[in-house]
């Protein structure tokens, strides 16, 4: 019997993908023999828009780069901008930022665990994990006023203070997650079917991880101890000894597969809970904003020249923002964003080649992709599929204007 080849397009709209991206796979039976990953469906031109707006507006634009890690991009934004502008946030604000960032890590990791359970068809586990996730969302809503998109950060501080009632809720939450996470370890790591579906799937070796520039939990699952919180500490992380969690610390061996990614993420929840506990126990008193008045802040930005890089360890990996303020306008003159999924998606093509159709959702999900984070540029192709560069594009635009002028009969 000759094996027939099928062409399976996955995406841009597909139930396994919650966001638009396209994976084109040629399969023989169940085996994938050819794969192509196409991105760019969620490109919104955020950096370009940010360079036209003022810094405060751009900060909130950066929050909408991604809704799941909605504090990661603002965090990198404020850290980078503060470096560029020479503003230092008060210690209390730094601690509050760290608490919010770790709360977000808890919610994002639990979300990922639920999603990956859903991808392998384990819907009851999705329901169970998301039931536990509501607790941290409640706390975030209590502190920030919304379940997602917290709008907490500001250049030079945070906008809302932690009150007594918030700290009480946080302490209660810490106790809850200590127990919940223990149960989660039992349910995920000990489940035979879950293990059968994830062990050996999406296996990324150390060398491969370095080659495709994997970051965050994906790289840590492959055994690379890399974590921005440990390598370039900032804010409250500078006071805490954060060590990146790698599977060899926990079980002694590294496979680098989706099962290890689960392991790393579950143990990182423990770590986040510890960090939050440290922060609320050692929360300094004082101001929460270096420059509380936005008008003053904007005029200071307008006067300042400088550049800086802000990095933050988002739940998915490192987020890096580059800024240049040129002292002529109240927004960034140059703003460049590097999101973790941009690196991690590189691992799809090598991992999918030779895998099975059933593994596509697991491979796609295990890096916790975030398309909206990584679609940063739009590429224009001509009819033959060649990329059109900017000079040609400009020439074509001029030509089109001339043609339209001619058609309309406009005289110079």
């Amino acid at each position, binding site marked *: 019997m000759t094996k027939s080849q099928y062409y399976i397009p996955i995406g841009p709209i597909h139930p396994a993908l*919650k966001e638009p991206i396209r994976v084109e796979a040629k399969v023989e039976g169940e085996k994938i023999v050819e794969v192509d990953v196409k991105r760019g469906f*969620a490109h*919104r*031109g955020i950096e370009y828009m940010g360079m036209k707006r003022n810094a405060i507006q751009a900060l909130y634009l950066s929050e909408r*780069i991604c809704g799941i890690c909605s504090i990661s991009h603002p965090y990198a934004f404020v850290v980078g901008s503060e470096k560029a502008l020479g503003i230092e946030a008060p210690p209390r604000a730094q601690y509050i930022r760290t608490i919010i960032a770790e709360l977000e890590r808890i919610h994002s990791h639990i979300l990922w665990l639920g999603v990956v359970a859903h991808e392998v068809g384990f819907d009851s586990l999705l329901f169970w994990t998301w039931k536990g996730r509501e607790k941290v969302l409640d706390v975030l809503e209590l502190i920030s006023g919304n379940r997602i*998109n917290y709008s907490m950060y500001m250049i030079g501080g945070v906008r809302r203070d932690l009150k007594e009632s918030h700290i009480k809720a946080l302490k209660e939450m810490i106790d809850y997650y200590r127990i919940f996470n223990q149960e989660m370890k039992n349910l995920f790591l000990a489940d035979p079917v879950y293990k059968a579906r994830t062990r050996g799937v999406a296996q990324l070796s150390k060398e491969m991880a370095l080659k495709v520039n994997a970051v965050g939990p994906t790289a840590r699952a492959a055994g690379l101890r890399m974590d921005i919180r440990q390598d370039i500490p900032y804010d409250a992380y500078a006071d805490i000894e954060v060590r990146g969690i790698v599977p060899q610390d926990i079980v002694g061996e590294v496979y680098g597969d989706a099962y290890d990614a689960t392991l790393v993420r579950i143990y990182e929840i423990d770590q986040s809970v510890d960090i939050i506990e440290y922060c609320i126990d050692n929360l300094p008193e004082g101001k929460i904003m270096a420059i509380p008045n936005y008008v003053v802040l904007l005029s200071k930005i307008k006067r300042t020249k400088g550049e800086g890089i802000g990095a933050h360890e988002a739940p998915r990996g490192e987020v890096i923002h580059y800024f240049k303020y040129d002292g002529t306008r109240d927004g960034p003159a140059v703003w460049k964003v590097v999101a973790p999924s941009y690196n991690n998606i590189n691992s799809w093509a090598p991992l999918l080649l030779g895998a099975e159709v059933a593994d596509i959702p697991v491979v796609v999900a295990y890096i916790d992709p975030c398309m909206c984070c990584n679609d940063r540029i739009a590429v224009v192709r001509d009819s033959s599929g060649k990329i059109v560069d900017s000079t040609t594009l400009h020439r074509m635009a001029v030509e089109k204007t001339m043609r339209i002028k001619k058609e309309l009969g406009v005289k110079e």
Partner: protein
Amino acid sequence: MGKLYSFKRSLWVFHASGGSCNGCDIEIIATLTPRYDAERFGIKLVGSPRHADVLLVTGAIPRDFADKLRRIYDQMSDPKAVVVVGNCGTSGGLFYDSYNLVGPIDEIIPVDVYVPGCPPRPEAIIDGVVKAWLKIEKLEKQLEGGE
């Protein structure tokens, strides 16, 4: 009993995410999870547009994506409805001046219910469902009156 009696009670939903920031998408999933449990209204997320009655769209639509959204809409069998979740899809939201967005969703496909919010709470999405029921009931009355 109206003609659309069972239609109202069994809305199967297909979810298409455009250039959204994911905030709305995860709130849609949260609507299905135990705290809010949309399945008690007969709402089910399905994996194929052919099965769906309602198209949930989130996010402002990038240029590349507009024709795909149109195609998904055409693939759904009649009668069908479109619900837009979140402000980006409703009006462009804070991406109002982006060069790569083709604008609000109602310029591409007809929209029945808007759920504003950034992102809307799961209850607000359920409220959108209630509004959709009301619209169906109005339609039912019209059908009965017309015949």
